[in-house]
């Protein structure tokens, strides 16, 4: 599948430094349509830095990131990202307008229903799971082809996790690509088609989930 699938997003020798500290050493990466790539590694390995760079939220110190054609990128940061005093609906409408989505109210209503979110309560009053789902709904507003998820299930209960993975699988099955970071080996094994491991800002492993399981067990 990967040999024929379209490359949606690619990074060439992309790196990030904070002063003298290299948060991410130069790295090459491609995300193809229908892929679900897991990004693993210990805390401080550079996973969030790489995702922020690919999302366009952080400028790369070196290298180039390119998005193919009309492909769009949606991003779910590690911490929920929305305005607490606005309701879920108001958040979705605002971000839809900022993204120039046609008919923002209708798109917001669709996503509220799809994620079973209460529309009119201030989002600060939502449960942690609902806040995370609201952030995912915001990431999906512009109908992105590539979804970047930074530890999407870290603070969710099992039921909420299942709902979250249901959404990402749906996205992949519709021809999109997902790059998610995770500390949970079971999730990696179950939901990733490819694994990228980072350590101290450097690429430590890249391959299938089976190979990764073997690599991880090696001393």
């Amino acid at each position: 599948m990967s040999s024929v699938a379209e490359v949606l997003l690619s990074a060439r020798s992309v790196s990030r430094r904070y002063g003298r500290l290299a948060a991410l050493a130069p790295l090459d990466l491609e995300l193809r349509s229908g892929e679900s790539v897991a990004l693993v590694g210990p805390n401080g390995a550079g996973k969030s830095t790489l995702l922020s760079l690919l999302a366009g939220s952080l400028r790369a110190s070196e290298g180039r990131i390119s998005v193919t054609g009309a492909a769009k990128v949606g991003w779910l940061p590690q911490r929920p990202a929305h305005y607490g005093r606005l309701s879920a609906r108001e958040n979705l409408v605002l971000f839809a307008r900022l993204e120039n989505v046609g008919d923002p109210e209708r798109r917001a209503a669709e996503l509220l229903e799809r994620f079973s979110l209460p529309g009119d309560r201030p989002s600060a009053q939502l449960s942690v799971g609902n806040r995370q789902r609201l952030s995912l709904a915001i990431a999906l507003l512009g109908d992105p082809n590539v979804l970047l998820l930074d530890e999407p299930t870290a603070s969710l209960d099992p039921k909420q996790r299942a709902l979250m993975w249901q959404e990402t699988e749906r996205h992949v099955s519709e021809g999109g690509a997902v790059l998610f970071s995770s500390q949970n080996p079971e999730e990696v094994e179950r939901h990733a088609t490819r694994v990228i491991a980072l350590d101290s800002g450097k690429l430590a492993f890249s391959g299938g989930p089976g190979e990764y399981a073997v690599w991880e067990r090696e001393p």
Partner: protein
Amino acid sequence: MRTLRAAALLTRKDLVSLRRAPLVVILLACYPLLIAGLVGLVAGYANARPRVAVVDLDHIRHTTKIAGHTYNIKGAIDEVAKNVRISWMSKAEAEQALRTGKVVGVITIPPGFLTDLKSIIRSPTLEFETARGGISPRVTQQMQALVYNLNRKLQESYLKDAIRYISLIRHGGRASFLGSDYDVLGIDKARALLLKEKRNPSAAEVTRFLDTAEAALRASQISARAVAQPIKLAIETNKGRSWLFSAQMQAYALALTISILGLALAAAVTASERDENVACLLGRGLVSKLSLLGAKVALATIISLMVGTGILLAFGAIVEIGGITGGQPWGRVPLVLVGVTLFGAALGAIGTLIGALAREGRSATLGALLVALPIVLLGLVPREIVPPAGVVSDFFPFSHGERFFGSALYDLHPWATVAPEALWLLGLLAFWGAVARFVLPRLTEG
């Protein structure tokens, strides 16, 4: 167009968020008003009487005799020291009080003061020591006024005596000198006596001399009376407004309230983008840095206009209801609001800069307050007294706003002040806006 649209969307979002946090808005509006009131009170009491110590090294008694007349020198000092609070102290007490700042100056009556005063040969000297800086020049002026008043009081007394003696020589009467009473014939009676000696040629000569002496003495008496009553300043109170409702107070209240509110609000809402973790989403191309800056500047401007209008209406209502002299210049309100717009925008740019530099909302608000207070206080220091304060103050909006508001409200011809101050505010908006724009990536890149 897209930049404007995004800025408008974010401004609207901030306004909705603020509307849902009314307590924060009330607190933000009331706190600066409270500060404005306190600054007004302090400024109002700037004319309060400073405390001055008097050291009497000449051991002046309460009453003393000069040229046969009794004077109360201590009483005279207390009486003429209207603009300072006099405290009589020993030399050691006064030195300690000056060192510790309990008094702002020490007047010493040196040994021999009274002897010099009585001799009328050498001018007696009062010694004055004062602390450095601060209100010292004002206290020195007060002391000069005190010495002038003391001299005038003594002079008045001497002249009254002189006039009385001239009158005695001209018209005769009963006088007393060194404890003994005696009769003085006087020129009038002397002339009458000489008239009886018409045949005596010497009497005619003496009469001519008396006429000349009488004319000279009359002229001296008139001059002495005139000198005894020098030019006086007639002071009429209740002709103008009280300090509380003065143009300056209104300008201070506007400038101070908007300064603190505008800075704190712009800084807090800018930092809140990071607190809510939304800055990273906005920074990935959803919103340009210029839109983000524009949104925060617009918010600070809108809130400044709302609060500024509220202050003007409140002042105006009090002035109108209280029937205070001059009334509220309602026709000038639109011009003031133009100034409020520029002022709020310039403050919004500085607030955005603070918010972008701060780690989170609380430190942004604290940072804004820490920046606002020195800006305001620098603006209150008269540039004639501390010129560097004026130069530093020029780089911040407070003093320009305060001058704009004061002039727009009450100057007969405000344009000479309002136009350059408006240009200053525009320049500061551009300058601080450029700095904030440069720093904003810190916010969006986490």
